[in-house]
């Protein structure tokens, strides 16, 4: 029997929990159908999360899930242009007409959905984004020129965590859009996701005993994001997330990391998210979202 996994009409980091709950209702070896017919919009976090779901099924040896593409032609076209449907075809049996990808400069797409497997991929991503990031960070977001390199640094460090820790391929995507909830300003969102071991397993050998009974996905995220702890003994490790946090503090940005059944966020004043959510539906690997808002007064 085929199990239906619902893809929310608006897929972002909040509605992702509906999707994760639906995905977690059975085993990855179930026969599944991902129903995205009614989808109207997805953030980079949504796109990369969908790919991780498909990838995790493949890695578990499950049958290739069906994926019904959005019925809305404009939505379908956008999902093609951002590269999602092309990569989704690797993990899903796509149902519905998929438009041919046309070479087009999509102004809101800073980086199409891109796989990250090795250090060379991180180099390629940083090089590709550099020119576009200057235009978006100073132009669209109205931030100072000095914010551009920090943006590239945050991207580099977030992608490197896939290579250094996940043990499997990850995905990155960057988009600009209007963040309507409370902020009412333009934002650039970087999403970096992997279906790897997750923070808990990564840090268990060195941290579980120290933390004791409280050890779990949430505690592991706190160790990494708040305390800068790495699984490596090298004292120079663990600075990547600290560097990202420093950059985001300067530009009023936000970072959230979901791993396993917990999600931890460093929440700026313009957002009303909960810093820590636990007992979420389990989802493989780790999903990072970095949000950089436009400067105040920027239309």
């Amino acid at each position: 029997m085929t199990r239906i996994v619902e893809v929310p009409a608006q897929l972002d980091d909040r509605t992702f929990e509906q999707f994760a709950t639906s995905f977690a209702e059975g085993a990855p070896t179930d026969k599944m159908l991902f129903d995205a017919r009614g989808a109207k919009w997805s953030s980079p976090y949504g796109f990369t999360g969908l790919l991780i779901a498909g990838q995790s099924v493949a890695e578990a040896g499950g049958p290739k899930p069906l994926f019904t593409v959005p019925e809305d032609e404009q939505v379908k076209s956008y999902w093609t242009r951002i590269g999602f449907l092309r990569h989704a075809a690797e993990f899903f049996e796509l149902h519905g007409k998929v438009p041919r990808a046309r070479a087009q400069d999509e102004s809101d797409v800073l980086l199409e959905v891109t796989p990250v497997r090795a250090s060379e991929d991180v180099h390629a991503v940083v090089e590709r984004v550099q020119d576009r990031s200057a235009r978006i960070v100073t132009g669209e977001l109205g931030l100072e020129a000095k914010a551009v390199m920090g943006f590239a640094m945050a991207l580099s460090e977030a992608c490197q965590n896939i290579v250094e820790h996940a043990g499997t391929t990850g995905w990155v995507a960057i988009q600009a859009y209007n963040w309507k909830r409370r902020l009412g300003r333009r934002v650039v969102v970087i999403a970096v996701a992997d279906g790897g071991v997750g923070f808990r397993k990564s840090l268990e050998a060195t941290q579980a005993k120290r933390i004791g009974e409280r050890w779990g996905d949430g505690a592991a995220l706190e160790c990494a994001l708040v305390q800068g702890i790495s699984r490596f003994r090298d004292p120079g490790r663990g600075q990547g997330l600290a560097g990202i946090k420093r950059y985001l503090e300067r530009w009023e940005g936000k970072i959230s990391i979901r791993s396993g059944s917990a999600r931890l966020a460093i929440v700026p004043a313009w957002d009303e998210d909960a810093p820590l959510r636990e007992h979420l539906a389990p989802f493989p690997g780790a999903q990072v979202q970095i949000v950089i808002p436009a400067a105040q007064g920027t239309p």
Partner: protein
Amino acid sequence: MVTTIRLDSLLQEAHPAMTPKNLVTRPTGAAVRTSIEREMTLRRAQVALLDFSELDLVDLSCADEVVAKLLQRMDATDQRYVALTGLTEDQAEAIDHVLSHHQLGVQAITRDSSRPRLLGHFGNDSRAAFDVLIDRGPLDGGALATELGWHSDRLADALQVLCLLGVVIGTGGAFQAVLVA
């Protein structure tokens, strides 16, 4: 003797199929550091001046692998020194952050100023003593103490940090910055 080592060339060497301008990722940083160490051995200069002029981004991982680990691996008795040049403010900030984390330090010149400055783990006294050496050139301890208006003990503590972190050379009672302006 000072030898300049261009990091963009070593980066190209590490990635011959690309034309990279960004020093990112730990494997790249480790490869570039190995190349720097090779060049320092081959050239036998007392001061290796690492030139960042043609580079854009230096991420924290590379700042750690290239600069911090290079300094950590240097033999304090070898009397060889490292300084940095051609840095942007972003690069200087990343390097300053990782060096402070490791309690290391280095002398650096940024692109927008020819005046050498310190990056990393230095207190106010060390920075003040360094600034005098940059402004006045080589000085003996007595002259330096007079210039700063300090007791000799206070100066000795500051100079010890500067010498241990390899940004000041003390020879025959005189002290000078590794690089002079």
